[in-house]
């Protein structure tokens, strides 16, 4: 336990160190790209929390991310100042998560159906945003832009000073500091009483319920936290890139968050966060090289991870390290198929 805590604090220190020294070591392009990666990693933390610790497998995480992104774009275009746009970009996804959570948790919909329904909701948003190309679809002075999305979204500015936008270096520092702080806050939540109950819900819903906790409420709470984090990620992402389009809601985006959590290690926060950087870099690398079809390679990578590293990178590495120390071979998690089938009964 102390080991894990130490590693967590180390990671936190590393993120803050990056925020401090990054701007003096990296070029403009790298700063912009890494800020965008960090915004995505931030959103990933939300899902790593809700799925890994509370057991809510939501394919709707992209919906929260996208709603945050669009809310920021619309609000800041209208207001000409990003001060209020940021809280709005967090608030809108949270409100949406409450609405969705009412149907999902209070309807006591099973884990599988929950995944499928959240995916459907995300795809509805995708279709809707795609069909808003007509100029009559506008909120205030901000046209939604349909398939082309909204470009020329103003960057973040210092609070109440619309004339003082953040430079890429400052944006980079903000993104990494926010990532570090959110990581720390989520760890605090998990260590608190509420967090422990959430983990108990993941471990055994019925038992938690019989002990007297309203499972639905704790799930809803976790869902709201994850939506808030995703919205913040979407907001930073749009502010950094100056663009948001319907693809934030598409199947690729929806599944990407899930992939990062699985590949990084379900039940950890650091794993998904770290691996999201790697995957985003790989995606851009493949996209610019064009020597192989991106979805072909990604599909193969996902299958590879699911088949060979089913528990994710971080837990596998941790086990490997432990096994090395004890000189005991690591236990690989593949049992016979018949046992798998028997488990279902």
């Amino acid at each position, binding site marked *: 336990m102390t080991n894990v805590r130490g590693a967590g604090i180390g990671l936190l220190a590393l993120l803050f160190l990056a925020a401090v020294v990054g701007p003096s070591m990296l070029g403009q392009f790298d700063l912009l790209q890494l800020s965008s990666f960090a915004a995505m990693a931030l959103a990933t933390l939300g899902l790593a929390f809700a799925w890994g610790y509370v057991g809510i497998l939501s394919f709707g995480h992209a919906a929260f991310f996208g709603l945050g992104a669009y809310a920021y774009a619309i609000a800041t275009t209208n207001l000409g100042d990003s001060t209020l746009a940021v809280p709005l970009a967090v608030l809108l996804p949270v409100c949406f998560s409450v609405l969705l959570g009412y*149907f999902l948790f209070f309807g006591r919909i099973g*884990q599988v159906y929950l995944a499928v329904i959240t995916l459907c909701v995300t795809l509805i948003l995708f279709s809707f945003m795609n069909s808003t190309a007509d100029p009559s679809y506008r909120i205030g002075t901000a046209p939604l832009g349909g398939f082309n999305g909204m470009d020329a979204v103003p960057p973040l500015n210092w609070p109440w000073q619309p004339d003082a936008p953040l430079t890429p270096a400052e944006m980079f520092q903000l993104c990494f500091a926010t990532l570090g702080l959110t990581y720390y806050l989520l760890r605090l939540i998990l260590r608190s009483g509420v967090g422990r109950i959430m983990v108990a819900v993941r471990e055994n819903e019925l038992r938690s319920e019989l002990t007297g906790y309203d499972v639905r409420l704790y799930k809803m709470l976790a869902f709201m936290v994850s939506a808030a984090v995703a919205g913040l990620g979407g907001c930073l992402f749009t502010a950094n890139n100056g663009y948001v389009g319907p693809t934030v809601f598409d199947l690729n985006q929806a599944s990407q968050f*899930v992939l990062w959590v699985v590949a990084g290690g379900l039940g950890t926060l650091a794993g998904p966060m770290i691996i999201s950087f790697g995957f985003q870099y790989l995606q851009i690398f493949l996209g610019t090289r064009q020597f192989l079809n991106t979805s072909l390679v990604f599909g193969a990578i996902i299958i590879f991870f699911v088949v060979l590293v089913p528990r994710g990178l971080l837990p596998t590495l941790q086990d490997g390290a432990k096994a090395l120390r004890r000189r005991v071979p690591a236990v690989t998690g593949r049992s016979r198929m018949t046992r*798998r089938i028997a488990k279902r009964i």
Partner: protein
Amino acid sequence: MMDHAIDIAVAVATSIAVLTLISLGLAVIFGMMRIINFAHGEFIMLGGYATVEAVTHGVNIWIAMLVVAPVTVAAIGAVAERLIIRRFYGQLVTTMLATWGLSLFLIGLVTAVFGNTTRGVAAPLGSVAIGAYSVSAYQLVLVAITILLSLICLLALNRTRWGLVARGTMRNPEMAATLGIDPVKVYAATFATGAMLSGLAGGLLAPISGVIPHMGAAYVARAFVTVISGGPALITGTVAVAALLGPLEAALSLVATPVIGQAALLIAAVILLRVLPQGISVSWQGTRR
């Protein structure tokens, strides 16, 4: 007026048929086997491509749709089952991720081989005049084939020994194994059957919708909500939901846009599930397991 009514009736019947067609394969793979197959849309896509390719190479279009497409996709499904799916029976989340990877892989593969362009085949049979309107004869055939196919599935599942073995194995594989049935083989065969149905759907839809590598995304969500809302009675539940939601989609697509129609379908399904969390067919089938 009468002609107009017939015209609308055909549109509604077609939308029900399409919804049923795209859901039948998933009803087997997800409804029976509890595998969340995110590659379902890609199975449909592959069926479409198989048809288009066969027709381009001079195969009769009916043979291409009804034989080549299902056989090709069944073979691909069998390979996927052997290499990937087989390892994860009973682990819902893992199968979901594995099939999602498979889905991306297949999209990438088809894009690399056939290119990212829309292709199609001409619908056979021309059109039939109904008063002042003319209806595509192929749509009528599509509806007829769907009805026939649903009946065959229903009978195969409930009235044949094969269906009994499959249902029994899904319910209790250990018991089936003690009775001398190899669950591994039954699982493989059932998965291939589901893939075959999806391929058939893709083949039949190719003349209507054309084919493009990422076309699966348009079907997968609708197929899932239809099967989930259908509930424990696989075929009758699926058909019932299709009959309920198909007209809604058709009507709203006609009045507003196809996007609104699809959104309305998904929203209606979510509300339906809030009211009947077990799916619509609990009312005549009882709860599952």
